[in-house]
């Protein structure tokens, strides 16, 4: 029993990294694509720029998760990067809702 538990325990960090890379990375990319709306270039250009950048962010996140020295650090890194992106994204969408005016 304890041998099986041991194997599960050993697999934990790798599994955590994989989840972080695949899903956390996508989430970061998606966040980045919305955060790009905060750029001071009309909405259509910002949307496109966000999409273009999102794949780069995703790829860097995946590499970063596996470069990190431990699974905990990997997840911490993801969260640390997510915070400013989330703030920018939130403020940009709030601005979009309230402005609702003509596109530049």
């Amino acid at each position, binding site marked *: 029993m304890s041998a099986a538990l*041991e194997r599960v325990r050993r697999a934990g960090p790798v599994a955590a990294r994989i989840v972080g890379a695949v899903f956390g990375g996508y989430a970061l990319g998606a966040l980045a694509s*919305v955060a790009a709306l905060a750029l001071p*270039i009309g909405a259509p250009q910002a*949307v*496109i720029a966000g*999409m273009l950048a*999102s*794949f780069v962010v995703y790829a860097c996140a995946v*590499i970063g998760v596996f470069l990190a020295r431990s699974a905990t650090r990997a997840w911490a890194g993801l969260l640390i990067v997510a915070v400013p992106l989330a703030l920018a994204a939130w403020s940009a969408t709030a601005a979009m809702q309230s402005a*609702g005016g003509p596109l530049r």
Partner: protein
Amino acid sequence: MKPAANAKPPRRGVRQRMSDLHTWAGLLVGWILYAMFLTGTVSYFKDEISQWMRPELAYQRVMPDPATAAQRVAATLGAVAADSPQWLITLPTTRSNVASAFWRVPHPQPGKLPYGLATFDPSTGEKLAVRDTLGGEFFLRFHYQFYYLPAVWGRWLAGACAMFMVVAIVSGVITHKKIFVDFFTFRWGKGQRSWLDAHNALSVFGLPFHLMITYTGLVTLMTLYMPWGAHAALTTPARQHAFDLQLSSFMPPGARADVPAALAPVDAMVRVGEARWGRGNVASVLVTNPGDAQARVVVTRGAVARVSTSPQYLLFDGVSGRLLDVRERVGAAAQTRGVLYALHMGRFGDLTLRWLYFVVSLAGTAMVGTGLVMWTVKRRQKLPDPERPHFGFRVVERLNIASIAGLSIAMTGFLWGNRLLPAAVAGRARIEVDVFFAVWVGVLLYALVRPARRAWIELLGLAAALLALLPVLNALTTGRPFWRSVAAGDWVYAGFDLMMWALAALHAALALRAARHRPRERIADGRRARALRVEDA
């Protein structure tokens, strides 16, 4: 002091972790990536393949006048699809000898699709009376959305594989940091090391290309993969429309006036486009509300000599023929996306540039293939008993055979099917696709029952035979054998035959190599070390 059983295993270094990431990322999706790469590679010549697959159409020495072709197809559509709110006519080019059209059907019969699709003879404007086939479009469509899947799922699968590939490239470069220095060191015929070096060499050759093609592939479908920014920002139809115009010249059909009015001559509009962008450089004509007073016509620029797909178009009033609007600029981000999209499609260049694309893309295909084979070569040496490998190894080995040798056989089988299937069969285009997959499944089953090494040799040999005999089949079933194509200066058909023979030779060479290869015996470490030192001297 913790007891030894709880001690953590020694942490793997950065390079080792990146190498593991590279191996896993590559292995999990390698077979699909190989198929995407190979079908993408041949898609650079899809128009030529389409010509080959419609042998009833004579060799097009001179490009048909696109303006007249547009007018004639519009006349046919006026009869066939008069009540359609929108027609999209794709014009012939120097490489494509057909016109095609897509139109919406406002009230489809139950069970029928709400749109129509057909290919037309550019000289008469009539629907083509030749064998129904997808042509080279089959390979392109497989490349990014596969078959037998809902299109959106197929595109998601392709995108996921592309993302894995980006990670594999970056982790590969990090693993092999001295990559440009080590690039020129290659050992020939030395078992595992030479496979590794072949894989490295192919990867490094086209590193800029591979990274570019993978990233730009994601960009082509970016609105599907990352729609979140668009959801957040494009909250009104006006905003959505303004965004769409940054990406393409497609316009949704506007409101009708319900006042019948004849459509103005479309050929005049195409000629305005040609005057502006160059002869033959008009890609398509989009007619909305034909036969109505609110008709509009959008004439879109072609791909020649322009490294961007950002829309450049002319908007005409569909009744008076008056030019209403000229759009030739988009914003900076949109222009960047247009350039990236064009780099992926590779349609902007001339023949030489397209051949360059083809060669480097083929190297990329070989990069994926050597990576997959290398995994089995490496693991085989570590097997406790090479005669009875564990299950995972056998799965990888068989999938390698089925997806590498098998794809060559299936693609050639598709072309054989095009020549052998009777022209009048209903749903012929679909049956050609079924033939492709049936052959592929057949190869997979064969690879499962034969011993692995024999399977490689036999299947590569079969591919070589099918490729070599295809020009013979062509000569027997059509009036266009190789010698006649050369005499007539028909370099599409002649070139196609030559390419088949070249590929046959390649597969034959690979089969011979597989036949001569003897897996390295497991010898005692001391003897091996001494043997290696002798060889390196």
